[in-house]
């Protein structure tokens, strides 16, 4: 029951996110809008209930399980883009390497000395 109550809260926030997406005409998914709304609600309340914390921990621990089915589809469209995979591979490998370095360098630069404090929290 406790888990279910937390789960209900998450589903309701997802529905609210979808509603916001529809009425505000935002090109962002209902899940992300729901995530923003839940964060703000918790900040306003100043605390998080045990059932909500429990339910979200449970769902996040199976995140990989939920992504996997979508990833399977990739292997079935492989030949559809036969001529493109070389370009795609180079662009993704080089592009991702560059953007990872950029992010880390920028954060390190801007965060400066404040970033040294907490290790492996």
């Amino acid at each position, binding site marked *: 029951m406790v888990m279910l109550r937390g*789960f209900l809260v*998450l*589903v309701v926030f*997802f529905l609210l996110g979808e509603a916001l997406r529809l009425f505000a005409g*935002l*090109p*962002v*998914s*209902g*899940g*992300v809008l*729901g*995530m923003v709304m*839940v*964060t703000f609600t*918790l*900040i306003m309340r100043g605390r998080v209930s045990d059932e909500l*914390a429990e*339910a*979200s921990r449970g*769902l*996040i621990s199976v995140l*990989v*399980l*939920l*992504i*996997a*089915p*979508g*990833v*399977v*589809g*990739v*292997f*079935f469209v492989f030949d559809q*883009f036969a001529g493109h995979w070389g370009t*795609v591979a*180079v*662009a*993704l*490998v080089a*592009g*991702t390497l560059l*953007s*990872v*370095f*950029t*992010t*880390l*360098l*920028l*954060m*390190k630069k801007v*965060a400066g000395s*404040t*970033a040294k404090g*907490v*290790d*492996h*929290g």
Partner: protein
Amino acid sequence: MADAPVFEDLMSTWASGPMLSIALTLGAFMVAQWLFARFGRPLWMPPVLIAALLLAAVVAASGLGFEKYSQGAAWLTALLGPTTVALGVPLYQQMHHIRALWKPILATLPVAASLAAVYALGIAWMMGASPLVLASLAPKSVTAPIAMGIAEQLGGSVSLTLGGLLITGVLASLFVDWAARWLNIQDDRIIGFALGLNGHAIGTARAFEISPTAGAFASLGMGLTGVFTALLLPFAFQLWLPAP
């Protein structure tokens, strides 16, 4: 072959509901976790990739077919919505860390999230990629539900986008690990943020393996990148490539 029709009957009975797909997905997930631990947790082969490879092999070999499989698996993937919402909870729990770093986060995000798309697009463009491929690659660092929407809006292929997402997520997990070591960055907050910003949900799943703090910053990076890219990319793409 008197047994063949019986097997086919059984398959079609099983495949008529979602339970076969759900059982296969749960099984693949558990085997993948076990294999991942068994092989010493290799970063280049995250559980999501192992599970997807196992599933693709079983789905193809059993004759179930991807269409049937994904219809059943939709019962599981429907939970991605509330799970994305759930990421708001660790975000709140780590708010004191985020408050302490809000300036660097706000300064880094627009530049890094734009460059995450621009680097790959620029390289693909120089290599002569078609507008379809460019539109499909543009949202490569954005979490899947948002990325699919962006790709459609730009006139890309959703399948190719998902392929790009998978590769980007795996590469980002790998590269963040290398780059952080090379740049001597040990701050979980910065590592987590870079994982979420560049590697969306796959990077975020990886960050939660490192620590709750890294996970929260990855959720933040993923969410902000998703919102930022969804709002700006369609507009920027139109300016850059008037006729996709």
